[in-house]
């Protein structure tokens, strides 16, 4: 168990290190000079050179990476090239809406998708099983932004019951905060649900063919109890791993949803930073997203060990 977790944490640290390197060098090699973007119309060769020196961009790459890595490890992600605010503050402000959006969507998606997948697996032989599976395939092929736009048309434009965008922090007004998140969360959840349902359904159907399900039936256990006691936990073991992998989908989906619903989250911050060649902010966003991804997957490995005694034995 300790060995297993130690291995996972070590793997996570290595992943993060590789991501920092990637984030740094990808931006360093990107075409375009931040100094000229910053100066815009006022750019002259002298000014560009001055700003370049001021930003430390005249230093050799390895030196720049070393400095950046040291500062990052000390918790200092630098200042924005555009707004000159500390990147730490920008990230902190943007992280809250994104985390709120992502977590709420994930919870909603999982709470709906897992029971749905199990029920579909249990009733795999009934007449509505095929049409339902077809509907799920359709759901997987629908792009997330389209769902978001349709929801806006329906609930904001036609019915006028929910805001079409914007974000109110919960510290200001909890009710408005919830209202502002309903459509974004629905969009992201609808985007996630079909693939999770399909995964759960396929996994549960193969679990239903396991010998221990026959054993449970030979014990005289009722089908609903077999589903809950034997099929669901065994399905969950693989499903949580799948959900961990879906986190990437969730992050990229959050970027799109934040843009559609104009939520001041990490996605919008990152995208604007890319467009402005605001490299310290880009690097900060990538680093934060990667850390979140690694951290959640570590939590999933932990949950895995909690469900499966064979993992604990390792």
């Amino acid at each position, binding site marked *: 168990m300790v060995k297993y977790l130690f291995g996972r944490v070590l793997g996570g640290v290595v992943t993060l290190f590789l991501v920092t390197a990637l984030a740094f060098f990808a931006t360093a090699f990107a075409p375009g000079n931040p100094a000229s973007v910053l100066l815009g119309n006022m750019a002259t060769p002298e000014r560009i050179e001055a700003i370049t020196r001021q930003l430390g961009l005249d230093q050799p790459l390895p030196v720049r990476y070393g400095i950046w890595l040291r500062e990052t490890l000390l918790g200092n992600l630098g200042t924005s090239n555009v707004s000159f605010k500390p990147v730490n503050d920008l990230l902190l402000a943007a992280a809250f809406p994104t985390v709120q959006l992502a977590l709420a969507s994930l919870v909603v998606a999982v709470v709906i998708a897992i029971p749905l997948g199990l029920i579909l697996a249990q009733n795999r*032989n009934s007449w509505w099983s095929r049409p339902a599976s077809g509907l799920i395939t359709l759901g997987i092929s629908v792009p997330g932004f389209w769902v978001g736009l349709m929801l806006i048309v329906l609930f904001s434009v036609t019915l006028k019951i929910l805001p079409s965008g914007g974000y109110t922090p919960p510290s200001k007004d909890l009710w408005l905060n919830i209202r502002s998140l309903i459509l974004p969360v629905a969009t992201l959840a609808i985007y996630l649900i079909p693939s999770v349902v399909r995964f759960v359904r396929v996994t549960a159907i193969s679990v239903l063919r*396991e*010998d*221990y399900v*026959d*054993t*449970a*039936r*030979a*014990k*005289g*256990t*009722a089908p609903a109890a077999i589903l809950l*006691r*034997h099929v669901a*936990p*065994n399905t969950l*073991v693989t499903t949580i791993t799948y959900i961990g992998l879906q986190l990437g989908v969730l992050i990229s989906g959050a970027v799109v949803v934040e843009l559609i619903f104009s939520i001041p989250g990490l996605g919008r911050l990152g995208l604007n930073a890319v467009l402005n060649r605001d490299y310290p902010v880009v690097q900060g966003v990538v680093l934060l997203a990667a850390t979140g991804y690694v951290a959640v997957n570590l939590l999933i490995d932990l949950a895995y060990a909690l*469900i*499966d*005694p*064979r993992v604990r*034995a390792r």
Partner: protein
Amino acid sequence: MAQAETIDAPTQTSPLLDVRGLSVTLTREGSAAALVDDVSFSLAAGEILCIVGESGCGKTVTARSIIGLNRTDPRFTLGGRIDFDGTDLLSLSETQMRGVRGAKIAMIFQDPMTSLNPLHRIGAQIGEVLRNHTDLGSRAIRERTIELLAQVGIPYPGSRIDDYPHQFSGGMRQRAMIALALACSPSLLIADEPTTALDVTTQKQILSLIDGLRHQYGMAVVLITHDLGVVAGIADRVMVMYAGQCVEAGAVRDVFRAPQHPYTAGLLASIPAANRVRTPRLPSIKGAPPVLTEGRPAGCAFRPRCEHAFGACVERPGLEGVDHLHRCWLPEAARAHLAVEAGRVPA
């Protein structure tokens, strides 16, 4: 005809299990295949009946039909009667059948490595049967479970009860499965090749455990095997199945001494036992049994592999005999010679 197609248990009272004209049809992608075709047998309380035959001859399907594991599967159609303790199991509703499963009829499976849920403790899996069929409280269930584990020879049952399946060896898992099957003292135990996945020394232990427990619990056992050595060691009666049909059935002693069907003779000849007449090479039956989902051979299903096949075999033979039944067209003199072929008597 239906009267003749039975192996009646040699008791005066009505048998515990009486299967009459059981047929199981698998319908898949529009085509139907008879996996079990008009099989009848009966079994008295406390008896062991072995069902033998190669893979794919309908042994497992027959067993699963008795305990009703395939009755809710829409691909399977079951016909005939399965009278158990005076009730036709096929006429029961699924809810009524759940009350029988685990309580009066129990089953153990071929592979103990996969027949226990890896995520639940051994004790919880055995306790589940007791919770299904008794009013025992959790403490009483635990006590009974420890008692059962001790009975099947698990050392330190008081602590092993909280182990997970992966902490048990294959033999111990099969012992745990037996404990699970015994929990509600069933009157019939179905064991589907319970030793096939185990190593040889463990096989013997498990079989003698089953044999001992049937005496102790007075339960009847339907034991599926393809090992005739096992049959000789443990069974009272034997039914040989081929292509979904019973081809020979009777008391073990009779069938082994004087096999009446070339298939049985072939199976007997291929046992590498010490007491048989030695041949330079271990004989085997050429070819493979028909895949029933691809169609059954016309006439006698064994004809394509039979060295004795003659003109009459294009017709489907019926089951003949009184106590020792056989389904073969060969005249009596030729059938008498099969014992020599089986290596039971010197030529």
